[in-house]
């Protein structure tokens, strides 16, 4: 008898006093799918895109938008809770978009709350926009997809002219706390233009403490793809011998080795590109050039392009969008510690590039031997 009383009392205490009833049910939660962060007049403005359950009278669109303004990001987010009377639920958040103005207040200032939040997933996509982040959350997609999901899918899987850019919360934060003291961060710029409902990618913005932002050039995007082994139907147009050859890259592999020569890092990049000849543009009809010749020319072109780009970015931008700092740290950690300022070390670096091109397919057509 006493044992039953003990159980009853224990269970009552357990469920009565310990706050187990404090959990908010799903209907009292704001299921946040996308967050837009803008900055104006010394205040953060957050726009939350929230999933709206398909009940009549609430929203036929499938989402709602709430905004609030605060001195800090956290304050603004809390105000949304207070204004709506619901609890924010971040575990399903797909994307966070920052305006350039907000990012210029400092990357850590913008991401710190999300990093500390226990609910926010580490693989939430981050993106930047030149316009207002709030506007970006109104892009349309196919069917009834929530704009934030459309945006997130586009960031993760969409075909942009640059491959997957490091835009996850995890990778952004990792770069902020790496032990070589530099911040170098490429972020996809996403825009919404009048007349175009869907999001489109408008270049890559790179962030660095000395260079708040600069836009990646076409040339840098090419090199970025090779350096990150991203191929995905990239077309490479090679002007050669009065012809213009379109070559589709099937596969790219790269190896980077670095050695330190009298305190100067020397990077040797080995690239292997496998490609198909898709198109030739010749005044004399369809002619298949000597493949060896074409291969050699392409190898030279890629090597020169890579070498010059790496050098240029290291010198002019003090920015390490190609992850060379991590490679240097991995292979020569002691040098990085001694050097202290990686920016200067990279600036003085030398770059070499060796490319091997493998032509996998040449398509139909006669072979003129």
């Amino acid at each position, binding site marked *: 008898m006493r044992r039953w009383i003990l159980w009853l009392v224990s269970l009552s205490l357990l469920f009565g006093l310990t706050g187990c009833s404090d959990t908010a049910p*799903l209907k009292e939660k704001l299921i946040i799918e996308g967050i837009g962060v803008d900055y104006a007049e010394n205040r953060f403005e957050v726009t939350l895109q929230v999933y709206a*359950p398909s009940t009549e009278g609430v929203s036929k669109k499938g989402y709602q938008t709430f905004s609030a303004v605060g001195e800090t990001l956290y304050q603004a987010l809390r105000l949304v809770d207070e204004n709506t009377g619901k609890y924010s639920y971040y575990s399903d958040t797909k994307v966070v978009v920052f305006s350039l103005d907000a990012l210029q207040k400092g990357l850590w200032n913008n991401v710190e709350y999300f990093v500390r939040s226990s609910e926010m997933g580490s693989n939430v996509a981050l993106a930047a926009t030149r316009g207002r982040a709030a506007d970006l959350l109104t892009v349309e997609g196919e069917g009834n997809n929530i704009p934030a999901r459309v945006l997130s899918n586009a960031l993760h899987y969409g075909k942009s002219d640059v491959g997957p850019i490091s835009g996850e919360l995890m990778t952004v934060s990792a770069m902020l706390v790496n032990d070589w003291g530099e911040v170098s961060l490429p972020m996809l710029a996403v825009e919404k233009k009048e007349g175009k409902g869907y999001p489109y990618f408008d270049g890559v913005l790179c962030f660095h403490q000395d260079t708040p932002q600069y836009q990646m050039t076409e040339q840098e995007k090419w090199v970025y793809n090779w350096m990150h082994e991203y191929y995905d139907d990239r077309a490479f147009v090679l002007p050669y011998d009065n012809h213009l050859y379109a070559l589709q890259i099937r596969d790219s592999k790269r190896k980077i080795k670095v050695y330190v020569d009298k305190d100067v890092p020397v990077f040797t990049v080995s690239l292997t590109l496998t490609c198909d000849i898709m198109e030739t543009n010749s005044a004399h009809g369809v002619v298949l050039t000597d493949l060896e010749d074409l291969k050699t020319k392409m190898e030279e072109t890629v090597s020169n392009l890579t070498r010059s780009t790496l050098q240029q970015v290291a010198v002019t931008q003090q920015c390490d969008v190609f992850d060379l700092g991590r490679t240097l740290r991995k292979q020569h950690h002691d040098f990085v510690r001694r050097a202290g300022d990686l920016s200067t070390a990279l600036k003085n670096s030398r770059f070499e590039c060796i490319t091997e091109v493998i032509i996998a397919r040449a398509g139909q057509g006669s072979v003129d031997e």
Partner: protein
Amino acid sequence: MEQTKLSSLLIQNVMQVRSAYASSGDLNVRMLSSGEHRFACITLENMVNKQILNDMLLKRLVRQPLSGPPMNCFIQIEEEISTASEQKRISTLEQLYEMMASGFAVLLMDGVPLGLALGFQGFPARGVQPPENEVMERASHEAFVDVLKLNTPLLRRRMKTKDFVIETMQVGRSSQTQVAVCYLQGRASEGTVAKIKQQLRSVKIDTVLESGYLQPFLEADSRSLFPSVGVSERPDTVCAKISEGRVAILVDGSPFCLITPFLFSEHFQSMDDYTMNPYYATFIRLLKYLSFFLAMLLPGFYVAVGEHNPEVFPSAIFFKVVDAEVATPFSLLWEALIIHTIYEIMREAGLRLPKSVGHAVSIVGALVIGEAAVTAGLIGAPMIIVVAVTALASYVIPSLYYPTAILRFLFIIVGGLSGLFGVVLLFAVVLTEITSLNAFGVPISAPISPFDLRSMRDTVARLGWKTLSRRIAKVQELHGAEEETR
């Protein structure tokens, strides 16, 4: 208990029997003479086949007058006149009452302090029929009946070895119910058999009407939700268990045989497994294990994740759950409790109702729960799916229905109050409860834990007969079984 010896005086014996059955109207006493000797044939109404009694005994006695000393005549009847294949000499009134109640005709003779119990039973009894609860696709269609004497031949026919022992004993002060303890000598543990018999002797129930009355006395822990004694109405299943060193207990009046020690993994085994292709048998076994977990855990898991850990849901399902929950007035916890309670009410009603009215229950259930509740927005559609899957899964293993039904509610409550961690913790507690049970020295969680590789060939998977026949699996040889049971 003190036994009253029969008197040499016939009239005294008859008076005592009449006195004992004074209030009962079904006592028959037929006085007759054969030669110079007087006899009394005592029976209970409709317990004896009167035609056979008349033809095989009474006519012969009357037509063949006996002479000589009473004892000689008694022996002559016993050895020459009576043609009963089963007869027993009795010497006490208590034996007389017992034999009469068992359908024997008892012949008393004046001058002899003995009686002769003759097996001319003719009481009404159900014939051997197909099993109702353990329906198999490809196995025998015989099930036990209510009469012990008709059940033991069903086993004896299948276990023709002389090592197959059927020991009988009585339990129940008033009912004096016959119980048969069946085992294979040399294969079953002697210690286990002795303990079982001792447990049965220690049963103090006044009236034992069903094998279920004795089951708690044989369980490892009668307070536990999980049984360590199996029940079967199939003779082929019982024989299979006996051949593995287990002990079967048949109770007169019950078509359900008790089997012990009974492992937890045996709930997932059936006769069909051994007659099918081993690949399919293994697939079905895995399905059964999956069904068990679904039946026990699915509602609690759904409630726990929906209320406390929604990040576990893939996004598409998450939105469906949100849509459903927003539209309903109750929380997931209350929805689950209400709907499962209604389901149990329906199930119980369906069991008790006559068959002719039975399908009205299913129509009402489908309409009320399936259609109206969802349309009215009282219950969410995902919850209906959860209930449906749970209900179907729980019938895959009928022997575990009761524990899973209770645990299901526990898991729902714990999940609703404490989330996924509470569900997982309760699962660990349930697992501990199962592993703590030892049935006569054999852990019921074997051969999964303690792990026994050799026995795993017929636990989750079912290997082919060529492999299984290489070694006789004995329950007391499992890892973790106590030394005394080996």
